[in-house]
């Protein structure tokens, strides 16, 4: 039980750091960028980040740890 709690806490910490970092980049580009190019970069970054993050989560959920850890 404690291992599950620890892994959940670790996951939340990593997710928080990632979301904060993503928000910081988008915020800086939109708030401080001069002209339209930084805003376009922010949009591209956000869309790509979302796609890659979703792919990472999907691939993680597809892992069958039983298959990998038990030798055949």
């Amino acid at each position, binding site marked *: 039980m404690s291992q599950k709690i620890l892994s959940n806490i670790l996951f939340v910490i990593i997710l928080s750091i990632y979301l904060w*970092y*993503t928000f*910081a*980049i988008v915020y*800086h*580009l939109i708030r*401080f*960028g*001069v*002209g*339209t*190019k*930084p*805003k*376009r*970069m922010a*949009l591209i*970054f956000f869309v*790509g*980040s979302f796609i*890659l*993050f979703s*792919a*990472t989560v999907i*691939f*993680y959920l*597809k*892992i*069958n740890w039983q*298959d*990998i850890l038990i030798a*055949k």
Partner: protein
Amino acid sequence: MSIFTFSKNTFEGQLPGEETILVTRKHWIFLVLPLFLIFFLGAIILAFTFWISSFSWYERFSPIWQFILSLIFLILWNLGFWWIMIYSLNTIIITNKRIIENKQLGLFKHIVNELQLKDIQDISVKIIGPFAHLMNYGDIEVQSAGTVAKFFFNQLPWPEKIKNVIMEQKIKES
């Protein structure tokens, strides 16, 4: 405001009646080179994936490798856009009243230098090296009558043209 239409390049701290004449950043080669390294790293990792997929044990471990691969690409994507953010936010803005240099050195490290056009005494352009001549980038040194005697703007594209724009605005302003 649509990000796909023409921009007046307004900025925070713009004074009433102040018009943006030119916004410039470092030469694009200083953005592309680090991005190319990141892209090259991604390509190496993909090539490694193709190589290990030929082994018999790959099928058993492919889900975990796919997860690691997507994580690596997520990290590379964030790294690339960190660099794009730093490049985009480092600007030289020439207005009809002053020159503003924004230096974004990190997420929470930001320097702004400002120079009034009327304080400009002298401008010199330095283009050093064959590569700089080929790619047409250089440094601009501005001698000022203000508190800070000299301003240096490094690795700018078309430095001669930028110098001409500054001199034009200085003449108009005076």
